[in-house]
């Protein structure tokens, strides 16, 4: 009897390290759905690069709660159908703790209900207000709101005494959303929209629409809501047709130095709202975001040899918010992590300082934005 008892203890002692090893080296699975290829790749590609870079960095520093993060990345190509099927995979098969992304609002809206029903944490990198309005318990988003961008634009117009504008937008989801908001918010801001035109997002030349703008008497500013290449084409056409003195406002989709290079000299003087990431060098060291932004910019640009963009920043914020939630909850139980994320306050991200609450799953206020302009081919803060 005694002998078996001793043998039994020995076996347990020998086996114990095996068990201990398994639990502490079991990675934390985080799913990511990004539009790395396809029409939204300008969003998804930097997001994917940022996520990978961060996960490698965190794991090299010891992981979270002593465990490594395993990033399960899916490329949706901006297709909502693929996003749905990847989300199902991540929820049912991979059983991840949380999903970051998708890159576009269209995809996010398709999986919002799915994640809510399956009690899966979703931190989206898309900007549409409907993602967090009505608030779903498990769904958060990291970009600033489109309406906040527009508020900034109208504020600047008020400072400049601009009352009549032209609105140009592309015929995709982003352009449509911007057009609607601009139309809704112009009246209350005391601004009259004289010309309101939609163009094909693949348009090769916009001189005809700008001719219409030029023919409308009294247009004091042009607002363009689109992504590349139309952003550059509008800028160039405006200068070519003789509208050099009319300020051009672009959306917060202008947030990449590459777009300035493409428009060349025509980009000078463009005004657009963006987060502080693009002008981090102008921030004083005392600014709460300075350290996070400077580090992210340095790491990204030295690793990938390309300019940092605000879009990659959304993925940074999403991933770091999940990590912060895990740290605060001290566990990887999904309920606890969700509660922790919902109560995050004063969290410094790239888009701004986040303050979540049960009613506010976006967490950013108006001062997450700043009005930027292009001077000598570089981004700089716009000063009147």
């Amino acid at each position: 009897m005694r002998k078996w008892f001793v043998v039994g203890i020995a076996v347990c002692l020998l086996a114990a390290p095996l068990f201990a090893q398994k639990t502490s080296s079991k990675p934390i699975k985080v799913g990511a759905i990004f539009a790395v290829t396809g029409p939204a790749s300008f969003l998804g590609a930097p997001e994917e690069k940022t996520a990978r870079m961060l996960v490698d960095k965190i794991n090299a520093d010891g992981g979270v709660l002593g465990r490594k993060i395993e990033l399960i990345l899916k490329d949706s190509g901006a297709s909502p159908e693929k996003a749905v099927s990847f989300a199902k995979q991540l929820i049912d098969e991979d059983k991840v703790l949380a999903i970051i992304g998708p890159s576009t609002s269209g995809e996010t809206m398709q999986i919002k209900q799915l994640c809510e029903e399956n009690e899966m944490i979703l931190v989206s990198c898309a900007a549409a207000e409907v993602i967090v309005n009505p608030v779903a318990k498990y769904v958060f988003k990291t970009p600033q709101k489109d309406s906040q961008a527009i508020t900034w634009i109208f504020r600047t117009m008020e400072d400049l005494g601009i009352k009549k504008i032209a609105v140009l937008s592309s015929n995709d989801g982003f352009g449509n959303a911007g057009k609607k908001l601009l139309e809704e918010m112009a009246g209350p801001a005391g601004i009259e929209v004289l010309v309101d035109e939609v163009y094909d997002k693949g348009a090769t030349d916009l001189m005809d629409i700008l001719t219409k703008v030029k023919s409308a008497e009294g247009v004091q500013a042009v607002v363009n809501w689109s992504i590349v290449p139309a952003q550059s084409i509008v800028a160039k056409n405006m200068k070519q047709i003789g509208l050099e003195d009319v300020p051009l406002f672009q959306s917060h989709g202008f947030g990449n130095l590459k777009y300035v290079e493409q428009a060349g000299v025509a980009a000078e003087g463009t005004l657009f709202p963006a987060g502080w990431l693009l002008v981090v060098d102008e921030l004083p060291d005392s600014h709460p975001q300075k350290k996070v932004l400077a580090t992210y910019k340095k790491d990204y640009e030295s690793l990938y040899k390309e300019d940092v963009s605000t879009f990659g920043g959304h993925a940074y914020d999403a991933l770091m918010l999940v990590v912060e939630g895990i740290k605060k909850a001290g566990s990887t139980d999904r309920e606890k992590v969700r509660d922790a994320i919902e109560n995050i306050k004063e969290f410094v991200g790239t888009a701004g300082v986040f303050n979540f609450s049960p009613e506010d799953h976006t967490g950013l206020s108006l001062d997450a934005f700043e009005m930027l302009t292009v001077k000598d081919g570089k981004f700089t803060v716009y000063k009147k």
Partner: protein
Amino acid sequence: MDSGTLALQYLLSGVTKGSIYAVVAIGFNLIYSATGVLNFAQGEFVMLGGMVAVTLAHFVPLPVAVTGAVMVVALVGCLLEIAFFRRLRHHSILHMIVITIGLSIVIQEAALHIWDEKVRSLPYFSGNEISSIRFLGAAVSPQVLWVLGTVGVLVLLLHLFLRYTLQGRAIRACSSNPEAAMLVGINISNMRTLSFGLSAALGAIGGCVISPITMTHYEMGTPLAIKGFAAAILGGLGNPMAAVLGGLTIGILEAFSVSKLPAAYSDVTAFTVLLLVLFLRPHGLFGSPVGESVREY
């Protein structure tokens, strides 16, 4: 802006767009005339021309980059023909057209993988992004004049080639009567390869010259092909000058539509007119009815 200047400005903007469509239409037209195949990958040749030139322009001066791009894309055109069309057991035109649709998708994805999704462009051939030339109060970018000039020269060269050189006449012979051409010893397959290569080269030159205006990116091929195809049909397949005029017509129609209706309807207007023309003159504005020597120049 008074109405005369305004009208002129709309006209110039229409010509800008139209010249871009014309550039694609010429290539469409050549392959159709020579082989009867509608090459839906023509837009991709235009895109490749621009992409390769932009890459080369990092290392060599602009004219060398453009020449290099044209040669590379012409080679790609020939290789595609050899790889995909020669092996066909039945040279059915319909099969070949569908294959070109597949090729267009494959080339697009390949371009995405080789170059990535970013938008890029060649520098302006003269001037820069904000220079413009004034005609009687209306403005146009100097690059547009480059496009028109290039298109004009290409049409002329194509005409001379097809009329006065042996290879050109051989191509016309193949399109006119393939069996007879074979009987007199012309190698139909080689002529098809040659016409693909030429068409790719035309597309590549077009892609280079429009790059500063439209920006070059991996997805630009398909919308260009659609408009270029419409332009070629409107002008009348079988005649390169007609393709150019078709392109300019569509561009000007779109500009006219923008002046009166919301810009979102410009495509609707252009395609409605295209349909009307086809109902009344199925062979296009300047083409001759099939059966007559449509492909004779």
